């Protein structure tokens, strides 16, 4: 409240009793009369409302009686009158065209045996999302999604994500905001706006649909947890019994593994092929092969120890993925099993500027990196699932220092870059147990034995919740 408003209120409060005292007896009588009329009017209106309520209750009771009659003893000999179905659809109103809304609340409590500030994946430069969830009690992402058909030609959807910033503030980001043309013929499927790339398998899923609290190490290392950007997609589904989908995308290139966009139609291009089908009635599978070609301009990454790296060059990623799902007779409600694995291979070449405490070294960089994970999640009874996952990464980076820029020697530039893994391949074992009382809620306990750091084992525990409010979502395979 502004000081001016406060002052006004104070003046009013002070003047009020003075004003009443100053009123004459005649005026008071007049006011009393007015009050009485008002009171009478209100009483009449109340009575009217009460009668209306009684009528409504009686009607409801009557309806209920009719319903229970139908339940207990309707005439069997088709004498039951079958009323014409009521006109479907709701009458038009200002809010009748509101988009479908859903909110996903996510939070967790996390504990790490190693200091999370030292987290790194040796041999890899990580983007800003590549690290661990906050230690202690924390909100994970809160997602708000709105979607609707725009008109007969377009469908639109946006997901806003609210999350904690490291400095204590709240970060609101547009996770996705895309438009799909709905009338493309002949199996064509398009999308433009901001969206998650269709490369790999897990990349297209929002984090609330993941089977583990954290992303696989490969996703942390190669795609900054998940790659989405501003761009366009065109895909085509073949008219065959076996599912075959081919598509490509172009993205601006403002997010890791790219830097800042430098070309009109983007610095990142993808191509992907997905094939899938059923084996009998109980099994279904999906396999994919995809590539992401990145021309990175000034890609900034942080390495523990106050180092920041700037990469310029080419980064080409190849992904293979495979998913197998089993459910007895295809009925997944009681028991089901899901196996999922993905393989990543990346070739990067260019130059890197390494900045640390005022020093700025330069390197020629030619790196090959790979990573994979495999996981299985078993629903052993309705609403309960248990899962295991194994992650592994490897890097073979060729580094040649071209300028020390204040660093004492070549070794210190290389060490500061975080790109030398000293022969160590990060790996991680994960186990989880989750309980989903309904489709809309999930509680999960997870343990990670993270052997990412050299000669260090991080024991990570997390207890997590995922709650969905609003529109019933539909999930991809």
């Amino acid at each position, binding site marked *: 409240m502004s000081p001016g408003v406060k002052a006004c209120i104070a003046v009013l409060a002070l003047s009020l009793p003075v004003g009443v005292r100053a009123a004459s007896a005649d005026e008071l009588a007049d006011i009393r009369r007015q009050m009485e009329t008002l009171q009478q009017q209100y009483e009449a209106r109340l009575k009217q409302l009460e009668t209306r309520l009684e009528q409504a209750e009686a009607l409801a009771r009557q309806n209920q009686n009719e319903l229970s009659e139908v339940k207990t003893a309707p005439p*069997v*000999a088709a004498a039951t009158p079958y009323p014409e179905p009521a006109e479907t659809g709701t009458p038009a109103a200002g809010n009748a065209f509101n988009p479908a809304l859903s909110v996903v609340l996510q939070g967790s409590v996390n504990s790490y045996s190693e200091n999370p500030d030292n987290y790194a994946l040796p041999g890899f430069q990580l983007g800003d999302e590549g690290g661990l969830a906050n230690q202690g009690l924390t909100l994970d992402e809160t997602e708000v999604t709105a979607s609707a058909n725009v008109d007969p030609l377009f469908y639109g959807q946006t997901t806003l994500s609210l999350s904690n910033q490291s400095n204590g503030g709240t970060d609101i980001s547009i996770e996705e905001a895309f438009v799909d043309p709905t009338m493309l013929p002949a199996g064509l499927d398009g999308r433009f706006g901001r969206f998650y790339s269709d490369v790999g398998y897990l990349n297209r899923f929002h984090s609330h649909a993941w089977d583990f609290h954290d992303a696989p190490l490969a996703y942390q290392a190669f795609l900054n947890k998940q790659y989405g950007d501003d761009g366009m997609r065109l895909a*085509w589904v073949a008219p*065959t019994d076996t599912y075959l*989908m081919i598509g490509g995308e172009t993205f601006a290139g403002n997010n890791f593994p790219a830097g800042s966009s430098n070309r009109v139609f983007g610095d990142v291009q993808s191509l992907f092929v997905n094939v899938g089908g059923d084996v009998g*009635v109980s099994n279904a599978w999906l396999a994919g092969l995809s590539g992401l070609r990145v021309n990175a301009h000034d890609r900034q990454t942080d390495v523990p120890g106050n180092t920041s790296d700037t990469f310029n060059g080419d980064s080409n990623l190849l992904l293979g993925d495979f998913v197998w799902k089993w459910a007895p*007779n295809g009925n997944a409600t009681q028991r089901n099993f899901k196996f999922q694995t993905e393989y990543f291979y990346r070739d990067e070449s260019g130059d890197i500027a390494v900045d640390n405490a005022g020093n700025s070294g330069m390197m020629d960089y030619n790196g090959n990196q790979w990573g994979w994970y495999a996981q299985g999640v078993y629903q052993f009874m309705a609403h309960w699932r248990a899962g295991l996952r194994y992650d592994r990464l490897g890097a073979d980076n060729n580094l040649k220092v071209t300028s020390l820029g204040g660093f004492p020697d070549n070794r210190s530039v290389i060490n500061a870059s975080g790109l030398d893994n000293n022969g160590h391949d990060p790996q991680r074992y994960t186990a989880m147990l989750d309980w989903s009382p*309904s*489709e809309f809620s999930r509680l999960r306990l997870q343990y990670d034995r993270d052997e990412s750091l050299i000669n260090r084992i991080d024991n990570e525990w997390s207890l997590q919740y995922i709650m969905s409010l609003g529109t019933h979502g539909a*999930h991809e395979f």
Partner: protein
Amino acid sequence: MTRYLLSVLFGLLLLPLNAAATLRVFSCEPEWSSLVTELAGEHADVFTATTAQQDPHYIQARPSLIAQMRRADLVVCTGAELEIGWLPVLMARGGNPRVKPGTDGYFEAANFVTMLGVPQHLDRAEGDIHPRGNPHIQLDPHNIERIAPALSDRLAKLDPANAADYGKRLEDFRQRWQAAMQRWETQGASLRGMPIVVHHESWAYLNRWLGLNQIGTLEPKPGVPPSSSHLAELLETLKATPAKAVIRAPYQDPRASEWLSKQVPGLVMIEMPFTVGGNAQATDLFGLFDSSIALLKGAQP
């Protein structure tokens, strides 16, 4: 080389147009496949997305289903949000604008019947409730009778060349269906007022048609699995008001009804077919009701 690849791609694009000699129908549930087969015969090539052993609320949006959606000329589903967890994904991924909701290629059976169990207020604390009412509409033959002409009209609209034949088939089906309904209603007369317990609210339409008296449900709330405290309560209710049978669909976990039938002497456990393919007798819509009535009558002394 590029020219060759382009021509192959172009040829693939044209493929579905050449192959459309018969209507390709994507049916979400087996009961609609049976109805389409009755009404269209050899004019339709029907693919059924689910079986009687699967819970139609929870189906994986499998790649094979997307591939079928891609080529469908007509999609026939229950609607009323029964398929809300999977059909939208198939629609979005299938790249087939001819079957999107609102087009002639999309048929929702629930639009043609009077829905039961439309909730008074919507709150997920009440369990898995459907805003538009109970979607298990196939278990009242009067509903089938209402849906058939609408579906036949739709077939004729999509395939006008065979319109006369669809009309003839509809008339033939109607006659056989009405005769069958008469038979079922005579057979089922003794079922009127029969007290039953159900697993899930899947039987509202059957109850209403046959006049069965539903005393309780194994699920405390729709979609919430039976709990021991709720079953204990139900047991108390059954002591006061005994039931003849506890019924469930093939895809529902049998353990709760097995337990209850052991606790209550004289309570017969029945696995109803629920839809076409639910048991050996329910090979089509006629068999579905023949078997359902026979099973219920079998529980009577």
